[in-house]
């Protein structure tokens, strides 16, 4: 070998060694994808998930590439969307229950891709599930509602009679009753997650029937705009809806998915991702609250703050016995709290004291 050639080889080898040690060779970014059921403009459920995705991008910068797909219907088409994403991404978050079967099917065909299914109950080697203890949020707003109502009627706009929604109604009612023994909750089922017109109609109907505080388990800002117009109180759902109800919103339950999403995406990057089932609440920071409305009396605010602090320390559980079911049969004994499964995750009954008849 000639001298010149030999020295180039040496230089090249030295260069590679240096690069290898300094790690200046950029690693491929993690590719994360999010499937949304609605538009990010709903300022509710999907908006909150999108905020979580944005949080991941903010924290990881160029180490992550994020793809989002909005308004994916919960039908057999979603399987194709998830497959398209699986072909190009390392981890996929499917943010609605109705994607369960498609997620499992695609996960089988793409064992190297990680899947995170929100509010589902089936896991696999490469499928995790995650949900938030929204009912803890309902506990706090239930107390506020119980104190702030004058007509003693809480109007509840509910979407579908699934366990998550039932948990919310029960938790809110129990909390309200604990501070106001005369309070009642009236529930109207709109059988949709997002339909501003229908949600507004339901809100108006509830107000006409005497409700002076509204709660919702639907995704649009319609109910809170109705509350603002009619001069009554309401609560933001999944995000801070103050802009739509500056006077009406007492607080909002905020779904904070960011830290969880960051954790999972980082795990994929580090190679430490493992299938798990997450059901976090205030304590883990997944459920947060919008700033409390100053128009509330100091003692109401303090009571709410105390509840939030208790929850964040794991000191209380919104479902603590003695609690009976609506038909009078016992559910929780004194001081007893329910296990996740089956009590919470398959909840299909109202608690005792709720006047409304359980749907269907």
């Amino acid at each position, binding site marked *: 070998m000639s001298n010149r050639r030999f020295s180039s080889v040496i230089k090249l080898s030295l260069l590679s060694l240096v690069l290898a040690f300094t790690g200046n060779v950029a690693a491929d970014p993690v590719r994360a994808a999010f499937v949304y059921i609605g*538009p990010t403009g709903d300022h509710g459920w999907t908006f909150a998930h999108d905020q979580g995705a944005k949080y991941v991008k903010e924290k990881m910068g160029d180490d992550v590439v994020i793809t989002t797909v909005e308004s994916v219907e919960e039908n057999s088409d979603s399987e194709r969307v998830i497959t398209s994403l699986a072909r190009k991404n390392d981890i996929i978050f499917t943010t609605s229950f109705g994607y369960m079967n498609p997620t499992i099917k695609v996960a089988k065909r793409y064992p190297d891709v990680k899947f995170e299914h929100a509010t589902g109950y089936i896991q696999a080697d490469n499928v995790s599930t995650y949900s938030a203890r929204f009912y803890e949020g309902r506990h706090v707003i239930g107390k506020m509602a119980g104190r702030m109502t004058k007509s003693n009627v809480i109007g509840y706009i509910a979407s579908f009679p699934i366990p998550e929604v039932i948990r919310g109604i029960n938790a809110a009612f129990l909390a309200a009753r604990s501070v106001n023994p005369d309070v009642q909750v009236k529930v109207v089922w709109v*059988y949709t997650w*997002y339909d501003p017109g229908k949600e*507004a109609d*339901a809100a*108006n109907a509830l107000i006409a029937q*005497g409700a002076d505080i509204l709660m919702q388990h639907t995704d649009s800002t319609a109910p809170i*705009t109705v509350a603002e117009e009619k001069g009554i109180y309401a609560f933001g759902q999944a995000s801070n809806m103050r802009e739509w109800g500056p006077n009406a919103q007492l607080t909002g339950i905020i779904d904070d998915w960011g830290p969880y999403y960051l954790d999972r995406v980082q795990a994929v990057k580090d190679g430490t991702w493992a299938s798990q089932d997450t059901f976090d609440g205030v304590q883990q920071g997944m459920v947060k609250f919008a700033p409390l409305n100053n128009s509330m009396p100091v003692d109401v605010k303090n009571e709410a703050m105390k509840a939030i602090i208790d929850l964040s320390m794991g000191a209380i559980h919104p479902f603590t016995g003695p609690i009976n079911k609506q038909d009078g049969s016992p559910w929780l004994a004194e001081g007893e709290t329910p296990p996740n499964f089956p009590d919470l995750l398959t909840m299909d009954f109202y608690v005792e004291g709720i006047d409304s008849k359980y749907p269907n």
Partner: protein
Amino acid sequence: MNESLFINIIIGISIASVPLIFAAIGELLVERSGVLNLGVEGMMIVGALMGFVVQFHTGNSYLAVLAALFGGMAIASIFAFLTQYLLTNQVATGLALTLFGLGFSAFVGRGYTEETIQLITSIHIPVLSDIPFIGPLIFSFNPLVYVAFLMVYLVWWFLFKTKQGLILRAIGDNHDAAHAIGHNVVRYRVMAILFGGAMAGVGGAFLSLVQVPIWGEDMTAGRGWIALGLVVFASWQPFRIILGAILFGGITILQLHAQGFDIRISAQYLSMLPYLATIIILVSLRMRLKNKTNRTVPNCLGRIFHSTT
């Protein structure tokens, strides 16, 4: 049932029925001229969007309603051009209009889903609105509600009290004969179609400007199709539109109230009532008409007019 609940229900029903009244009265005129425009849903949603966008940018409600009116007309003009000048099949063209309208409004509106606007508020007439019970019930509605009733009256007056209305009805019943007499069939129909578009647009705007101050794609949620049904339900008679719209809007609202009152029927079956009621009433109307010889269906409804000159 206490007084304020009753008033609330009446107001709720009126709000639910007004978009239907606008869309249906417009389509009634169109069908009286012999044209079937299935694109009502598309025209309504475009009107809802236009109204919302203009209200958002200008804060001027009058401009917003006008924008909705012209938006509906503009998109209806596509239908008019295709069916009256290019002689296309009306059913297919109407469906294409609905599809296009839904897609177009969703597309243009996607930047507005996070915004909110000032609602058009109800009026308050100094003395009349304060009369107990009657005041809030009759004199305190949203201005568009009164406009809706006015339009019904105007359409009735036009169809049955003017010469042009008579000609239009004649065209709807026998376009060949009308053409032979010398009337411009195409011109009357185009005018009717544009009017229908304008009305549908305003009906859609009522949703985004009065009912809820936000925009969402598909917010018309099938009301355009209901309006089509209302025209048939009303046997193409203007004042019956009001009856049908109140019936339909009423059942929709009452179903929600029934839940609040804890009526023991599942919400899905209650929600079916408006649609089933429409069919049942149609059947009962037909049963009464069966013995008469005069039919109220415009004879030429849906048939393509071929001018031979």
